[in-house]
């Protein structure tokens, strides 16, 4: 079993499935049915295989595991190099799980171009798993940029009326970042002569050069997170994207920025990371307070949740740039939790959007009467988003606050204001959509969750509660990798302080 190239299997199986779907021919209805079936089975098997990665993962080993390496662009000395460590493990599982949930969740709601839709999601899954397991710069960059193609298509074909503007805005933001990131990668290659990430982590770049490299990478990751003030593409992208597109975008794509910081910036450029930590803190704190307030002013459900994502990512970036283990662990857990919770919240919006075709909060009210199961599910994720203890949303938040308090108590204080504001906009959203009397004519016949919707929510409900009650399950595999990264950063911090 261990001889299998498990990582490659998980990475490329969805692509194989997509190829099968590509060759499905026949009546439109039959093609749609078959595409759905193939996509579902592919995603399910991929997810189960990704569980094997977790099963084979040795939590005690801080380094890369399940490593695969074979010559690829041999003329340039570039290898096909894959592996997983504690930092990437959960992101791989998150990607395969959310792909599966997206396919189940859009079973009935997507009816046009089903074949292409399923292909796009499976290709996306390949790119996502690839980005989190690539250990070579070139390979990483291929996946990193490749993700954008299916995402553009998903927004551009199945999106809303202003999809072109949204895709365009996203493109503009990303373009600058991607180019600078590429320059940074090339410079790193020229400096060290290698494109292997584990090698580069030991490279010890000159501190002066680190600052420039760090800024170039920051331009890319800050847009992806997104951090304030590079966030304005996100609300538009979410609003125009179809439900499942938002789920993947919020659930996994936003984590690539954080993953980039953890995989590149911190280990390769530790001096620069510590040097720029105050900048990150400042932007994050602004993100938390500012975007929470902006979320309060929204009248569109998807925009509100999009802005809440920016605020939650503020907690993540604070955690990532807190060199102690609490902060790093908290940042990672907050990303995983946000992957569950924001994905679920976009599904929650999608459920009523499919029925009423409006994202306006004002179009709803009193849903609890007709949709009790929906109300309960929404309640759980609403509270998880507000960071209620016992749900996954609390774990990362408290670890980050405790962790950063040791570095800078003001940052902890300002970050903690997010607890109040986050509860405010979520409770108010819930009150306007679900509570109140059901008086609108359009809502009288609205039906509660369908079977496929319950199937899509069920794993997320269980995970949000499980992670809230027993977060140690999620901490165990990441602890060793986090500890080694934290030790490295603390050493550098001590060195910098003594200078």
């Amino acid at each position, binding site marked *: 079993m261990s001889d299998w190239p498990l990582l490659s299997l998980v990475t490329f199986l969805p692509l194989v499935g997509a190829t099968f779907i590509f060759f499905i021919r026949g009546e439109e209805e039959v093609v749609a049915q078959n595409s759905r079936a193939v996509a579902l089975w592919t995603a399910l098997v991929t997810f189960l295989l990704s569980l094997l990665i977790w099963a084979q993962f040795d939590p005690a080993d801080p380094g890369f595991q399940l490593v695969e390496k074979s010559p690829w662009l041999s003329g340039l000395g570039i290898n096909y190099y894959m592996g997983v460590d504690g930092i990437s493990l959960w992101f791989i599982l998150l990607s395969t799980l959310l792909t599966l949930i997206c396919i189940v969740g859009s079973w009935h709601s997507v009816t046009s171009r089903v074949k292409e839709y399923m292909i796009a999601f499976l290709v996306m899954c390949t790119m996502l798993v690839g980005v989190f397991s690539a250990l070579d710069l070139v390979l990483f960059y291929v996946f990193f940029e490749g993700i954008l193609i299916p995402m553009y298509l998903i927004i551009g074909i199945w999106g809303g009326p202003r999809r072109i503007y949204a895709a*365009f*805005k996203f493109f*503009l*933001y990303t373009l600058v970042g991607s180019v600078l990131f590429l320059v940074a990668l090339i410079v790193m290659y020229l400096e060290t002569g290698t494109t292997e990430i584990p090698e580069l982590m030991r490279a010890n770049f000159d501190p002066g050069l680190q600052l420039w490299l760090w800024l170039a990478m920051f331009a890319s990751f800050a847009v992806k997170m997104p951090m304030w*003030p590079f966030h*304005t*593409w996100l609300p538009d992208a979410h609003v125009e994207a179809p439900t499942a597109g938002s789920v993947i975008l919020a659930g996994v794509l936003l984590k690539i920025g954080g993953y980039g910081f953890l995989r590149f910036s911190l280990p390769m450029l530790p001096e620069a990371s510590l040097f720029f930590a105050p900048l990150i803190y400042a932007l994050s704190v602004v993100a938390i307070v*500012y975007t929470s*307030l*902006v*979320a*309060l*002013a*929204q009248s569109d459900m998807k925009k509100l949740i999009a802005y809440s994502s920016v605020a939650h990512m503020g907690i993540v970036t604070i955690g990532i740039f807190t060199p*102690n*283990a*609490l902060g790093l*662990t908290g940042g990672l857990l907050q990303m995983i939790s946000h992957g569950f919770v924001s994905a679920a919240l976009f599904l929650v919006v999608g459920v009523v959007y499919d029925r009423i075709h409006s994202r306006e909060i004002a179009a709803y009210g*009193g849903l*609890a*009467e007709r949709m009790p199961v929906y109300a309960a599910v929404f309640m759980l994720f609403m*509270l998880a988003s507000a960071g*209620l*203890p*016992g749900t996954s949303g*609390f*774990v990362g938040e*408290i*670890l980050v*606050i*405790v962790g950063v*308090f*040791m570095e800078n*108590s*003001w940052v*902890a*204080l300002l970050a*903690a*204001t997010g*607890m*109040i504001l986050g*509860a*405010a906009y979520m*409770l*108010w959203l819930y*009150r306007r959509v*679900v*509570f*109140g*009397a*059901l008086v609108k004519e359009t809502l009288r016949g609205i039906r509660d969750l369908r079977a496929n919707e319950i199937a899509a929510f069920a794993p997320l409900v269980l995970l949000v509660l499980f992670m809230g*009650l*027993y*977060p*140690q399950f999620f*901490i165990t595999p990441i*602890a060793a990798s986090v500890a080694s990264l934290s030790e490295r950063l603390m050493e550098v911090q001590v060195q910098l302080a003594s200078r």
Partner: protein
Amino acid sequence: MLYAVVLFAPLLGAAIAGLFGRLIGDRGAQLVTCALMGVSALAATIGLSALGDPPTTVRLFTWAVVDGFVAEWAIRVDGLSIVMMFVVSVVSFLIHVYSIGYMAHDPGIPRFFSYLSFFTFAMLALVTSDNLIQLYFGWEGVGVASYLLIGYWYTRPQACAAAIKAFLVNRVGDFGLALGIAATYFVFDSVQFDVIFANAARLAETDIVVFGARFDTLTIIAVLLFIGAIGKSAQLPLHTWLPDAMEGPTPVSALIHAATMVTAGVFLVARFSPLFEYAPDALALVAFLGATTALFAASVGLVQNDIKRVIAYSTCSQLGYMFAAAGVGAYAAAIFHLFTHAFFKALMFLGAGSVIHALKDEQDLRRMGGIWRKLPLTYGAMWVGSLALVGFPGTAGFFSKDAIIEAAWVSEAAFARYAFLMLLLAAVLTAFYTGRLMFLAFHGRPRDPELAAHAHESPPVMTVPLGLLAIGAVLSGWLGYVMLDPSGGFWGGAIFTQADNRVLEEIETVPALIKWSPTLALALGLGLAWLFYVGAPALPDLLAQRLRPLYAFLLNKWYFDELYDALFVRPALRLADRFWRGVDLGVIDRFGPDGVALATIEAAKRAVRLQTGYLYHYAFAMLIGIVALLSWYLLLVRG
């Protein structure tokens, strides 16, 4: 094992009623939750036998371990948690039973009972925690249960507004508590009580730099934790949610907003007595805010017309007494009052609920009256509760409240004398508003004959819990008096006092005048109430007219809601709009992507003119480009 039953039986009930409510029906949900609550209460009663034993902890499983941050699910069994488990589970059981009658015609019975049981579980998890993280879980768990129950009738706008307000105001407090947890870990490198308490003395009179200033280590931690207590226990200035919380069903008001949840703040201070004892400045704050709230809330209670709001302000005021007691170093007296208050205040609320039930959901005191003959059991029970509340000799309140007033007198702590005066004055007001409530609700001629004519006594499922609570409202004082034992033996070390804290000893020897002053205060207050509402009923209106501004000031609750609305709510919403429309759309987008896009279009228009279509133009441009690049490389990069 026994205590695990206390803790998890309500959770099981909540899960069954919540998940399978439709399957087992209303009756099934009532039976399951009440039976499991009964089991829990029984186990907690048996558990009282462990009082006086040294603390033990049952560890269940690990929540999270990161570095020294070790948080575990555990059940800590010591004097404090045993008393709290007993109060919470017994009162909760009685209220579960009462709710069968009170909520009989409600369409959402399984949901109601599920919430009620879930609340009880969260409260028990709070009091049995052995670390700050589990405490915080229970703390916010009871908060969310309270939110759900206040908003239980979710179609009513006021209920929804009150629910959100309760959650958010509590979150402000929790914000302090979360920072308190962070500061605790920063200083103690642990969130476990044992470690914190063992090292507290060592850290006395040291200081740390946080928030850019130098603070006494234990004081800053204690103050941050206390901010959480202020929110949960509705003390000034975070009290505004509690009166609004009366929008929930009355059993909820009794259980959560009187007997148990709101006392969590008092519990927190008592639990952290090993820390507060070394933080005199923090204690001074506790005493000051507690005493001030006691008087403030009593003053507002004088003029409220909603029967539940009068009791709500009374709760706020009595919690102030408890904090004042803790603040002057008499933690045991605080918990003793918490213990007795749970019974008589739950009784008052359930009695009020019985009245409301009898009068077709009428809550306005001005439409009640003249019904005491029709509700004899409720009437009798309410008087027992009222007398206990005002501290009538022989009732529970007489023991516990007087102990607090005496403690304030003998203590030498900061603000002790202030607390004594405030509390004594508040005792007069307490007796007055309690008398007013009783006289208006039951006596005189019916102010609404229609309602009064149809008034009827509640069914036994409601009156039996009333009777049992009435017994508790008397007996709890006699039984609980051992808590004040100056040796502290009762607590088995769960409450810590420094050697020079002799408050409990000294209250035995206060002068007779001080000893009887609360009783005099009660006689004065009750007498005035009798004069105003029975003797000369025209007097209140006359006084209200003569003292118009004062009356309006009290009736509008000192204008706190208006103040907060103007200071926080509206500015936040204005700022939200300004950030979004002004900054996001007006600055970032305008000069960011949209600006770049516009500039690109402009540039493209100009670039079009360059495309002449002649090959030699292009070739020439390329040549220039190559030359330029080459020269740049040779001159600057190589050189």
